[in-house]
């Protein structure tokens, strides 16, 4: 949670600054914090599933979500269907979609985070006094990343509780 607050603080601070260079650094940092907050939400779920997944790099997590995790829940859904376990089927379906969405989210936000940290030639652009974006990604979209990631991770937890895929 904490990192998300820092992102929000930096976002508010970006609007307060009048100096263009200051706006740029605060703006970029807000994107960075929102990305990390989302990343940590995903990592929390992965570590519970398999402690060694805590070591995965940023670029590898989306693959694990799309391949290993989605496949496991797909198998669990088949198993649940066989024994007519409605809660299990529902939880696994949601987890399959959530794994894909979480992977997409992490990949997209990661790319923006790279721009924020390393591509200083791509500046923060103000659309108006209440809106800014980076590489065409609006800050309001980035602000949602952490809770979006939390929602998807929640579905992974629920399905795991029903289906014991990783235990």
């Amino acid at each position: 949670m904490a990192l998300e607050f820092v992102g929000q603080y930096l976002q508010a601070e970006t609007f307060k600054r009048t100096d263009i260079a200051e706006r740029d650094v605060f703006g970029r940092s807000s994107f960075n914090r929102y990305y990390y907050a989302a990343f940590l939400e995903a990592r929390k779920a992965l570590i519970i599933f398999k402690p060694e997944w805590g070591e995965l790099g940023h670029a590898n997590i989306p693959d694990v979500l799309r391949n290993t995790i989605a496949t496991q829940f797909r198998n669990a859904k088949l198993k649940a269907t066989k024994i007519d376990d409605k809660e299990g089927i529902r939880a696994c379906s949601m987890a399959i979609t959530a794994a894909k969405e979480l992977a997409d989210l992490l990949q997209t936000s990661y790319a923006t985070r790279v721009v924020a940290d390393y591509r200083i030639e791509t500046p923060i652009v103000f659309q108006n006094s209440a809106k800014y974006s980076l590489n065409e990604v609006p800050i309001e979209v980035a602000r949602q990343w952490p809770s979006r990631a939390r929602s998807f991770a929640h579905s992974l937890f629920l399905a795991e509780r029903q289906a014991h895929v990783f235990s």
Partner: protein
Amino acid sequence: MYFPDDHLESVFRIREIPIVGKIVRGDGTSDVYVQIEYVTKSDGTKNPTRAQLLELKQEFKNINLNLHLLLVNKLGGQFEELLRATLFLAFPDQLRNVFCSIQGKAASVWVEPKQALTPTSKSAVETAARKFCESQEIDLVGFASIGDAEIPGKFAILSTLKIIAPADLTQLTSALTGKGFTVPSEDWLARKLDAIRKAHGVLFTADKRYALTGSTLKALGTSKNGKRSLDVRRLLALWKTSG
């Protein structure tokens, strides 16, 4: 060999696939991230097509670059924004956030309430979400409210019973609650188990305890995945009770 961004951009331009924003290179040398607009047309076909996207990836691979395509869907974003606005309006002060995933004509929706929703308000929110989706000719195929009570399914009940069997209703209820499930009542659990018993999934012993039948044990399978394995946990549970 290094390929500058404008060279990479031209690969997209030739195919008339517009890029959103700038090309981003990862920390590693070979990762390239590109946002492109991805649209599902009214006839269900996608633009760009899957074949086009795979071809692009291959073309990058040929020059030793690992292309990550980030599909940006402005329409999908609009759908979510409208759904969020609709639900915020219908349930003021109850929802913190609303997210959705659209795949073709199927939508899954997540709501993050400010406080856990009661079953009644949860189903009201779900109905409102469904109505909105219908108005956009989309099926609501999944709905989740973060933090609400979760009832154990058949598999969860059986796999929990496997660890502690033979167990009575009180013991099984507390084991399920310990896992984070909500058990509406012991009566509810008794009815569930009775249905499973009729299908020969569990045994009900004379001292009012439940145990799995051989066929259920077989169906649940075995795993030797260390201390997480149901079999190992069963052994540990036996050891604790006998100790």
